[in-house]
């Protein structure tokens, strides 16, 4: 409950934050909503001699939708995602997923940037970002670079972000595809036993495109090209869904924990993936 002592920094711009990161290296961490980092600090599982609070940096705030491109500042909260009608119109899957994350209080504070940068496979947004084929904008001493969500996750808590970089924005194309975020969890606020994001577009009676990704079923989020391929061109009938589920299950690698043994998680994943596909198709 009692975090170790630290120095608190509250820069008003990115340059200020980067300079603290540059000066203190591994000893410094950025603080966004604080709802993963502070709990870890309270358990003394995270040692952070220098904490850099990003809340005064305006460029990290706000949701912009411009010409079919959605840009979300890293400090945008889950609550802001849920209440944004413009974002709902541009990518309704965002609200559906955010409503399944944590609880009201956590959603007022927890940010999308923290969710995607945290690197915990339990977080829901990383899989969703892979489903949306989002890009992450990273800013460091050498300037700005962009990386794909589908390339960002290396292992649990290991991402492509360098310690001295800040994830500033998330960018993806608006989508009117049929959508679903299905999540099996033990209770409100729990990380998924299995979750699946699905986006499906229709051409006549057949699947024109499909994007399927999964949460907490490996040490990283999993985007399944094979599942997508199994759906495209089909009428999304029972056989196609079954084939897509089988393909998706080939791509995951869950581990046993108190949410259940591997066999159970594979079973749950199969049901959740099928539900996500069927619901996305029903909305396509």
């Amino acid at each position, binding site marked *: 409950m009692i975090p170790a002592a630290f120095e608190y920094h509250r820069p008003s711009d990115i340059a200020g934050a980067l300079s603290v990161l540059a000066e203190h290296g591994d000893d410094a961490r950025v603080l966004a909503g604080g709802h993963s980092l502070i709990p870890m600090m*309270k358990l003394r599982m995270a040692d952070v001699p220098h904490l850099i609070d990003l809340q005064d940096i305006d460029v990290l705030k706000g949701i912009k939708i411009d010409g079919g491109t959605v840009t979300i500042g890293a400090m945008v909260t889950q609550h802001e995602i849920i209440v944004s009608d413009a974002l709902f119109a541009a990518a309704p899957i965002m609200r559906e997923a955010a409503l399944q994350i944590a609880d009201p209080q956590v959603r007022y*504070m927890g940010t999308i940037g923290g969710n995607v940068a945290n690197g915990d496979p339990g977080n829901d947004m990383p899989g969703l970002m892979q489903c949306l084929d989002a890009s992450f904008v990273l800013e460091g001493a050498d300037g700005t670079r962009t990386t794909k969500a589908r390339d960002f996750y290396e292992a649990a808590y290991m991402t492509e972000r360098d310690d001295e970089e800040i994830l500033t924005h998330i960018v993806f194309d608006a989508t009117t595809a049929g959508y679903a975020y299905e999540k099996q969890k033990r209770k*409100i606020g729990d990380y998924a036993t299995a979750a699946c994001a699905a986006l499906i577009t229709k051409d006549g009676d057949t699947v024109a495109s499909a994007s399927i990704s999964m949460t907490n079923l490996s040490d990283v989020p999993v985007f399944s090209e094979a599942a997508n391929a199994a759906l495209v061109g089909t009428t999304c009938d029972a056989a196609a869904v079954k084939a897509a589920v089988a393909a998706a299950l080939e791509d995951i690698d869950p581990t046993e924990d108190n949410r259940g043994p591997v066999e159970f998680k594979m079973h749950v994943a199969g049901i959740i993936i099928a539900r996500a596909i069927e619901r996305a198709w029903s909305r396509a």
Partner: protein
Amino acid sequence: MTKQIIKLTVNGEEQEVLAEPRELLIYVLREKMGMKGPHVGCETSHCGACTVEMDGKSVKSCTMFAAQAQGAEITTIEGLGTPDNLHVLQENFKEHHGLQCGYCTPGMITRAHRLLQENPNPTEEEVRFGIAGNICRCTGYQNIVKSILSAAAELNAAKEAAQ
């Protein structure tokens, strides 16, 4: 580590205290500002007993450093009503037996207060989802839901009468 002056407006009153950066808002409120209504029920940010309203948000004050709240306006249960002048929510929790040990109640009512500002006429399901960040060990929630729905009806009736 360097202490800093933390200024907060708590229940309409400006307060200033000296705090280390690592001091959590819940402790500053309880130990330094005298607001003992918000409670600590866990160390993993689940229970919501420490819920206060901060700048129009329901926050778990155990998961925020006081330094982050610098300059904020905070409402705790003490700011909603007093024993002689209960808030509608407090009155309804009493009326509908929405509390037993009372430990979750300050966080629960503070959360319900915010919920009704955002959704003045919630369904039962919306109330249950809206207080999902607050755990209660005693009531089984049923009477809490009744209390909140009844408070909402009362507030809406008062609003209509005023129009």
